């Protein structure tokens, strides 16, 4: 088998290969970090470390999901779209780990306190809103549901942009004074949303038209 053959095979199975890389690089660190945290080997405060890891990790995956479509257009890699759902699902898994670690390990199942925190702390309110959204998107990512939902599916999944914005705000609000890192994340989020400008414009025009026709009646 020559080098060229190897490339040819890799090219043929590229979606499968990229998916494998995503599985490994999303799952292995999670297992490793939780293993360390459970055995009290992950910093002096394993709870805090786990919350940071799942939070930032989930945000990274969400931003990767959002970069699939611009990247596939810019670099003419149309097959990339086939890995988008997997990235999005891993972002949702990280979000689930983030929230459940918060409830289980930070609040230690004090559910009254959990509800209190959601109501009283704006950064947690925003974070929970984002979590509800990403859960909805994850559930409806199932192909059967997608077909059943038809046009409403896309409408729902456009909330991804709102969701990402909420996560950026959640991160920014959660820090004490070290705003540089969350600021960089906000810039990246903004840049990725800019690629959707034509889409936002179309949606806005549609809304204006609908409002106008409404007024005439």
């Amino acid at each position, binding site marked *: 088998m020559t080098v060229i053959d190897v490339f040819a095979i890799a090219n043929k199975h590229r979606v499968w290969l990229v998916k494998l890389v995503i599985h490994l690089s999303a799952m292995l660190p999670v297992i490793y970090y939780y293993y360390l945290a*459970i055995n009290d*080997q*992950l*910093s*002096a405060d394993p709870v*805090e470390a786990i919350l*940071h890891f799942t939070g930032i990790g989930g945000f990274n995956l969400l931003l990767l999901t959002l970069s699939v479509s611009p990247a596939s257009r810019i670099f003419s890699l149309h097959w990339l779209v086939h890995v988008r759902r997997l990235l999005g699902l891993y972002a949702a898994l990280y979000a689930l780990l983030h929230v459940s670690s918060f409830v289980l390990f930070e609040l*230690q199942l*004090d559910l009254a306190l959990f509800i209190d925190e959601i109501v009283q702390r704006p950064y947690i309110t925003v974070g929970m809103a984002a979590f509800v959204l990403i859960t909805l998107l994850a559930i409806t990512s199932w192909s059967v549901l997608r077909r059943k939902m038809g046009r409403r599916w896309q409408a729902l999944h456009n909330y991804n942009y709102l969701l990402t914005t909420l996560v950026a705000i959640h991160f920014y609000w959660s820090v004490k*004074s070290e705003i540089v890192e969350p600021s960089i994340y906000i810039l990246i989020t903004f840049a990725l949303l800019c690629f959707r400008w034509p889409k936002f414009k179309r949606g806005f025009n549609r809304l204006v038209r609908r409002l106008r026709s409404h007024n005439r009646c």
Partner: protein
Amino acid sequence: MTYSNKRGFNLKESEVTDEALYRNRRDLLKAMGYMGASMLLAPYSHLAHATNAPNPTFNRQPLSFTGSNRDSINDKLTPEQKVLTHNNFYEFGAQKHQPAELAQRFVVNPWQLKIHGEVEAPITLDYDDLFNRFTIEERIYRLRCVEAWSMVIPWLGFELSDLLRMVKPTSNAKFVRFKTLYDPAQMPGQNNRIVGGGIDYPYREGLRIDEASNSLTILAVGLYGKTLAPQNGAPIRLVVPWKYGFKSIKSIVEIELVEQQPETTWNMLAPNEYGFYANVNPAVDHPRWSQSSERRLTTGGLFSRNRIKTQLFNGYSEQVAHMYKGMDLATYY
């Protein structure tokens, strides 16, 4: 050597495990040395968060002390390793694991601590004075961070009131102002917004004179039987156990007695979040953290049940509540 004293800050009966851990710290350190030698930790070293022995460059000296309230503690001590690796000291990085990594080459000797202002006998202490001019005692205190975690630490130090007596405050002295060393060449956080969290340095703190004179308030020069590590505020730091941790200013170079309430770092940065008083109070929430309960960092991983109710004045009401009689603690938070 231990002796009992009946002052009210004493806590009760210590738990055996950690007492043993404390006494056997030499063995423990040796064991960790072997682990280091066998390279067990090496594969983890690329992980920013993986906890391990801090870079051992800084040499902590054993300290002798005269008394201790150790025989009467009922709170389990936080392991020395956690006290050494979980630090908010933004001069050495805004992430908690960074100070232990970035502070090891910090120079503490020679050191100068200047005490001046509204006093009759201003004085400048040098490094040796910090350990020789006062009676050094061990005090086991709870340390409560505003981020809602807490530790139990065996400090070595002397009462701030001993120092105040020495400089003879005038009747104008109503507040005490503290300042951390400003040395960007040694403290990367003072040189770089990203490392230092964008704080206006030097770090400043303040106490009312009666708070400063309270017998609970100490200037610590050591912990766990040895001099302080730089990440814990070597060579000398403040410890005010009924207030949130950020009041306990580290690596102090200046103490000034003043007439007006001084500006304090976190209060300047976000006055609606960090008050001048910063008394631990379960009834007054921080905008980002409920203060009704806290997580006590001792041993155990993710599954340890360490969330406990927070006590008013961090459990030191008996010694300090009288100073705040008639004050609305929600206004003066």
